């Protein structure tokens, strides 16, 4: 069973409030201990901030601050401020205080799925310190800034607004500022959090991110003003359905309309399904096109979902709902954070697995500030989220380890870093930790193609560097003898040594440096 299945069944059959369920199973969302919890809280807040800015084409300005409330008790305050679109006044209590409430339950690529994480952070803070979440928010052009303090009523899954006030938005600010006080182990989480911030700055080079924690201050100014096109809201692909999604989609369609036929339902709701495709499928599946969707029994829905998954003639999913970074931005991000001598990136054409569109992006960085390592340094991202844990079981690691790097003139230890980014409406995570991507053959294949192409480009670069090195070495080897040669010629011919020196230097420069790259012999 997936988490979703569990949740749904919890809600429906046991009458357990989702908030209660999360509260009892917090490790699922990554809040298992004060180290992970602090890291996870920072992540949730930063990712919400990025979504609140870049999805609306606002260049993100994000400030993250962690400070001790009580060092002895491991109580810390985390605050994150952005310049995003803010949260509508009415929505604030539910966004922070009601599990399963959110704007993200749509089929488009965004960082968090369901927007559950922020509620978990609120719940965790409430549970460990009893403190409410502080939210300050203003929409663009809003005259006021609203400030809330919210707790969650766990058994009823309802927000409790502890306090509310409003201030004049004199500076014309817009965005959201969230503060949480929680039990968190800063000293142990420190390196992960720093790494997370760095990698986030890499994958969002258009963002300006600053970070301040006990004993550390980091600042990553934006490297570009270009933001990738935000993903449009996509329709689900017929191959990606299961019975639950089907039920939800039917409920959605029914609420707005009267009786809808199966054919209309397919055409209207799914990606890439026209009349013709819908009819061919229904004929193949053994359903009449005019059946009303209301009439379908649970057994029929189950059968329909299975057949939609198995049908081989759907059109490929359209990738409009994806927002890869693009080669140019990826290169800028890598340059900004890793400061390599060479970097190249590839954004592959969209592909799909099991009805879900995906795009693979790969960058290879070499030399410069990258330390020499015994195997490629790997920086993984999924939907612009850095993946820091479970690298060993990730598909990227598998593909990288399967490549014979000596073919590309790379001998380890080498200053080599590889950045992989998978964008999809559904990332095929391995397990509940959401830190490793499973080895789906389609994804694996795309990764390998992209990796090999970037590696080929790196090889060309290395060859060029080697040639330049050889030319320089040859130049030095020859040049150092000019003095002796000129002096000897001067002794024998009686002409001035300087004249020979000048001429010989000219010959070396002309034939070795300028004509460089040709073989070792002259003429």
């Amino acid at each position, binding site marked *: 069973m997936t988490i979703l299945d569990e949740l749904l069944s919890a809600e429906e059959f046991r009458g357990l409030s989702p908030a209660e369920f999360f509260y009892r199973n917090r490790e699922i969302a990554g809040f298992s201990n004060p180290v992970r919890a602090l890291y996870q809280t920072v992540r949730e807040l930063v990712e919400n901030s990025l979504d609140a800015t870049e999805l609306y084409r606002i260049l993100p300005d994000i400030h993250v601050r962690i400070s001790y409330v009580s060092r002895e008790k491991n109580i810390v305050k985390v605050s994150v401020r952005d310049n995003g679109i803010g949260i509508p006044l009415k929505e604030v209590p539910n966004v922070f205080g009601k599990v399963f409430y959110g704007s993200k339950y749509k089929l488009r690529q965004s960082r968090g799925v369901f927007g559950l994480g922020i509620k978990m952070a609120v719940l965790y803070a409430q549970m460990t310190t009893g403190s409410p979440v502080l939210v300050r928010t203003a929409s663009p052009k809003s005259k006021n800034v609203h400030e809330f303090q919210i707790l969650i009523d766990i058994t009823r899954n309802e927000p409790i607004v502890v306090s509310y006030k409003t201030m004049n938005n004199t500076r014309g600010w817009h965005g959201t500022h969230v503060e949480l006080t929680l039990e968190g182990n800063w000293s142990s989480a420190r390196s992960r959090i720093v790494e997370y911030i760095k990698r986030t700055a890499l994958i969002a080079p258009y963002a300006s991110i600053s970070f301040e924690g006990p004993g550390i201050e980091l600042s990553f100014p934006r490297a570009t003003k270009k933001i990738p096109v935000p993903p449009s809201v996509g329709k689900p692909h017929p191959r990606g359905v299961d019975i639950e999604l089907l039920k939800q989609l039917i409920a959605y369609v029914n609420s707005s309309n009267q009786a809808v036929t199966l054919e209309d339902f397919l055409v209207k709701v799914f990606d890439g399904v026209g009349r013709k495709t819908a009819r061919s499928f229904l004929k193949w599946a053994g359903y009449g096109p005019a059946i009303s969707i209301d009439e379908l029994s649970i057994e029929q829905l189950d059968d329909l979902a299975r057949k939609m998954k198995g049908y081989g003639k759907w059109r490929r999913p359209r990738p409009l709902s994806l927002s890869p970074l693009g080669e140019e931005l990826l290169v800028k991000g890598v340059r900004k954070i890793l400061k390599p001598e060479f970097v190249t990136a590839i954004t592959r054409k969209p592909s799909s697995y099991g009805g879900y569109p995906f795009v693979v992006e790969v960058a290879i960085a070499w030399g410069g500030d990258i330390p020499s390592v015994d195997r490629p340094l790997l920086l993984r991202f999924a939907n612009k989220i850095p993946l820091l844990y479970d690298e060993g079981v990730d598909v990227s690691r598998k593909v990288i380890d399967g490549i014979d790097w000596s073919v590309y003139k790379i001998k380890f230890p080498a200053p080599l870093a590889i950045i992989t980014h998978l964008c999809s409406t559904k990332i095929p995570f391995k397990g509940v930790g959401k830190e490793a991507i499973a080895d789906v053959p389609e994804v694996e294949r795309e990764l390998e193609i992209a990796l090999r192409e970037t590696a080929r480009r790196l090889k060309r670069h290395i060859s060029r560097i080697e040639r330049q*090195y050889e030319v*320089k*070495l*040859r130049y*030095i*080897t*020859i*040049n*150092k*003898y000019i*003095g*002796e*040669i000129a*002096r*000897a*010629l001067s*002794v*024998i*011919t009686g*002409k001035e040594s300087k*004249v*020979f020196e000048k*001429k*010989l230097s*000219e*010959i*070396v420069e*002309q*034939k*070795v440096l300028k004509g460089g790259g040709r073989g*070792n*012999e*002259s*003429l």
Partner: protein
Amino acid sequence: MSLSDKEIIKRLEALAAKVAAQVMRGRPPYIEIPVRSFSNTIWDEKRKILRLGPAKARREFLDSKEVKKFMQTLLMLSLIVTARREGDYPTIRDLYYMGKHTITYRDINGRPRKEETWNEQRESNSIIEDIEVAVGILREDMGIMHDAKGKMVGNVIIRSKGHIIDCSKMGIGAYAIPPNPDRLEIIKVEADYVLVIEKDAIFERLNQEEFWKRENCVLITGKGQPDRATRRMVRRLWEEFGLPIYVLTDADPYGWYIYSVYRSGSISLSYESEKLACPEVRFIGVAASDIEAYKIPKNYVIIATDRDLKRANEMMKYPWFQSEAWQHELKLFLKRKEKVEIEALSGHGFKFLSNVYIPEKIEKRLWII
């Protein structure tokens, strides 16, 4: 046939002038030097000497593997020209020190580095040989000296710088052959033959016994691998006085190769064979076949090393070892894998060598060529 200093300077200068002209025209300069290696050695069957072949190599300034030698060649050329202009007679060791400079430069990582123009005398010696072949003048004629090591004793009278030297009146010593024997005048030779001995110790013993007086011969040693002066002296005695030359060496490939150097010239100096080789030199021993023929006692027999065997195998292929007799000796050596020193003949008594072995070999014409 000695060249005048003026002519020598002119030829040396011409070599440098060619390079200077290339440089001034902005062309990458090079020096053309005949190749001194086995591949460019020609065996002159008729004259029985090793000669230098026609192959020439360009030593190019822009070739990173050759540029150091290019520099060294011009450096050495400038030293020799200067010596000739000033009438100096430097030794090859003098030239090594005079040309040994420290070059400072920065390596590819910008670190300061030092490099010597040459690190050992072998390098500068090799450059001198290059210049000899490039200009076609032997170093002795260019006024370059070396530590001569050859010795001679016998009824030979020489004039040197106006002094008369009688090589039969050296007491317990011997006449030291000077670096350039061509500057000596050999006035009179009263001897039946010349015996060239590989080893100084044996030479000393025979001189002690006054073997040369008894046998009426001239004794010469080059103390191992002979220098050019020793070879030149042997050649003059053969050429100018028609004396037969006999060579006595250890019974091993190194000894036999020394014989062939007297006879045909050496691979590394094949360009000078014309003046140094003695094609009619006779090898009287010690031969591989002598070990059995003279019943050399077992305790004197040494087992050949792998290096000995390898050397013998190479020598089997040299054109100047193709005679039936030599092929037989080398094959025997490779089969038996045994070698002996000249001293092994003392197994039959200390006087066996001088009283029996040498006279018998010459009398019974038991030499090989």
